[in-house]
């Protein structure tokens, strides 16, 4: 067997899309600035010429119409991919996504094989282009939410989405656009709903996804030099959540840290901690720590952005603390607050 091809996060998506469009004539993509520009993240670069204007469809700036037309076309038996460019623009199509796409199978027994792709994650671009929609979407029954880290998973998850029956929100982190790695072949699928152990370890589990995986891997490397053996779980899919992989890892290590760039309150990290609490409480030697984004909008200035996000230092420090702490740390001062 030859070594797998290499590609970037973005070319892996292109390749997956091209192969699936060749395999299945009903697959098509719609969104703004796709045909010539190839999308704002090169995600469909070169596909316009190959498949023509009908299958790489440029739309007006009409997010509701984009998603609605995807929903209806999926009901008709086609396999639309709605490319929103930035996930934030889904705010203009929330009803179409949540009240229509996600509920039609449940209400009417008819699956909606729709993929909604968007770039997301915190990067430059200011407050309005850097929202973290993942919790909002995880909490919507009927939606699958994938958020790959490796080029391999981008391609494999896209293929699963395009061969599945139900709506998938396909979130891609902007900061990973050019990241390189191996990419699978035409029939190498990555199942939706399965996390992976990105790095095995015995002392502490770091649960994360997307851009956080690279940070966690780096932290693990640093800590391995300090005698702490870190296991990194890359969720890959946020909904449905792969509870077994997360819980299995934490049961083995007894300690866990969740790394998540979304704003602190009620972000995905909360669900992961709650899941661990539900299913691995008695295996925990220490409380699960969370390293999240601050509960703040994202500013423009790079120094301010950096100050709000989980960075390597904080992660290393937190993971080391969790891995090495012994016994309870009680802080009775806080209890007083409850008296009122």
């Amino acid at each position, binding site marked *: 067997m030859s070594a797998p091809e290499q590609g970037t996060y973005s070319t892996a998506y292109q390749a997956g899309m091209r192969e699936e469009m060749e395999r299945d004539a*009903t697959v*098509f993509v719609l969104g703004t600035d796709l045909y010539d520009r190839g999308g704002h993240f090169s995600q469909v670069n070169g596909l316009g010429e190959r498949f023509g204007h*009908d299958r790489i*469809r440029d*739309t*007006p700036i*009409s*997010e*509701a*119409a984009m998603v*609605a*037309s*995807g*929903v*209806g*076309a*999926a*009901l*008709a*038996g*086609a396999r*639309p991919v709605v490319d929103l460019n930035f996930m934030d623009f889904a705010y203009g199509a929330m*009803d*179409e996504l949540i*009240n*229509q796409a*996600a509920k*039609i*199978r*449940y*209400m*009417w*027994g*008819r*699956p909606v094989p729709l993929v909604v792709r968007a770039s997301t994650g915190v990067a430059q671009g200011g407050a309005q282009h850097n929202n973290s929609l993942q919790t909002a979407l995880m909490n919507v*029954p*009927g*939606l*699958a939410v994938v958020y790959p880290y490796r080029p391999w998973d981008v391609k494999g998850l896209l293929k699963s989405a395009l061969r*599945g*029956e*139900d*709506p*998938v929100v396909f979130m891609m982190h902007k900061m990973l656009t050019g990241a390189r790695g191996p990419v699978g072949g035409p029939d190498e699928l990555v199942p*939706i*709903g399965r996390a992976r152990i990105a790095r095995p370890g015995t002392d502490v589990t770091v649960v994360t996804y997307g851009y956080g995986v690279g940070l966690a891997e780096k932290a693990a490397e640093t800590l391995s030099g300090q005698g702490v053996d870190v296991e990194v779980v890359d969720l890959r899919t946020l*909904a*449905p*959540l792969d*509870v077994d992989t997360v819980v299995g890892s934490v049961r083995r290590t007894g300690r866990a840290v969740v790394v998540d760039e979304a704003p602190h309150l009620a972000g995905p990290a909360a669900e992961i901690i709650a899941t661990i609490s*539900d299913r691995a409480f008695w295996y925990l030697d220490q409380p699960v720590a969370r390293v999240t984004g601050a509960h703040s909008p994202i500013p423009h200035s790079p120094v301010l952005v950096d100050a709000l996000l989980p960075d390597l230092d904080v992660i290393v420090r937190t993971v080391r603390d969790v891995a090495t702490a012994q016994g309870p740390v009680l802080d009775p001062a806080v209890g007083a607050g409850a008296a009122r």
Partner: protein
Amino acid sequence: MSTDDDQAGVLTAPAPSAAGPADLPADGPALRDWLGDMLLIRTFEETADGLALRGKVPGGMHPAIGQEAVAVGIARGLRDGDVVAGTHRSHHHALAKHLPPDAVMAELYGKRDGANGGRGGSMHLADFDRGLWGTNGIVGAGLGIALGGALGSSILRNGSVAVGLFGDGGANTGRTWEFVNLAAVWNLPLVVVCENNLYAVETASKSVTGGTSVAERAAGFGLPSHQVDGQDVLAVQVAVRAAADRARSGAGPTFLEMLTYRYKGHNSGEVVRYRTEDEVLQWRSSRDPVERFSARLTDAGLLTPEQLTDLADRARRTIDHAVTVAEESPWPDPSTAAGNVSAWSDSQGYTR
């Protein structure tokens, strides 16, 4: 009607009287079928409204009494395989698309024999085999689904046409105009129908809708746009058939504003204070779609009093049966309540 396929909007808005009634085809049996459907709808809605007042329809319902011609004209202007997507007020469209009244009534009750097993309810009826791509609880949303259906038709080249409905209230929802524009620029086989019954809940649409008419507004989006007398089933059918033919020929979408009226309040039991009883009486006495159509058929010698009685009786019996089915149908199995959400997550079985 115009079949102008210019991208620019063309607005023809004859007053219903000025345009004169469409010619009546001589096909008595078919036209009596139409009338039968209208009577069926009228009987269904009056019965269901009464049942809703007695608490039989959880969450209540939005009766379409007075709007029968719109639904039957649309359904009769389409072919098998064509698609209709409705609004929150769309029992009439479901019945015109020939969903079994039993199944619709049982769905309103939330029973197992309902068209959607009790999951949908009055605002969320669907039957994909019969071309009803859902009635919809969200203002404007049905039109979006129809838009997508039309896109699917164009991608899959399956020759079907989609009709998307919204109300005068939906003319002020942004998504509506995104949908209209996209259909226009992609030349999709869509017929956009605004069912203008003058009110959105208690709000007179004139008071919150800028411009001369919804049809004129639509024309600005680059598709042919017409007003149609929604109380004349034949006018509706003719307009829809022409628009559907046009769509099927590849010439793109058409916008139809149908002028109609609902006799009841927004929802069953609503106390109506925002319009006069006189206004309602005017519409009922001079423009009732069932009365007008049966009179017209009678005048043309296509309907005898016996035939009319027979149709009304048949409607009554059908609806009585539907009520019996709905009453006697068991509740859905509670253990199924969280199933069939998504193939991706069903296996997950989250605890709670």
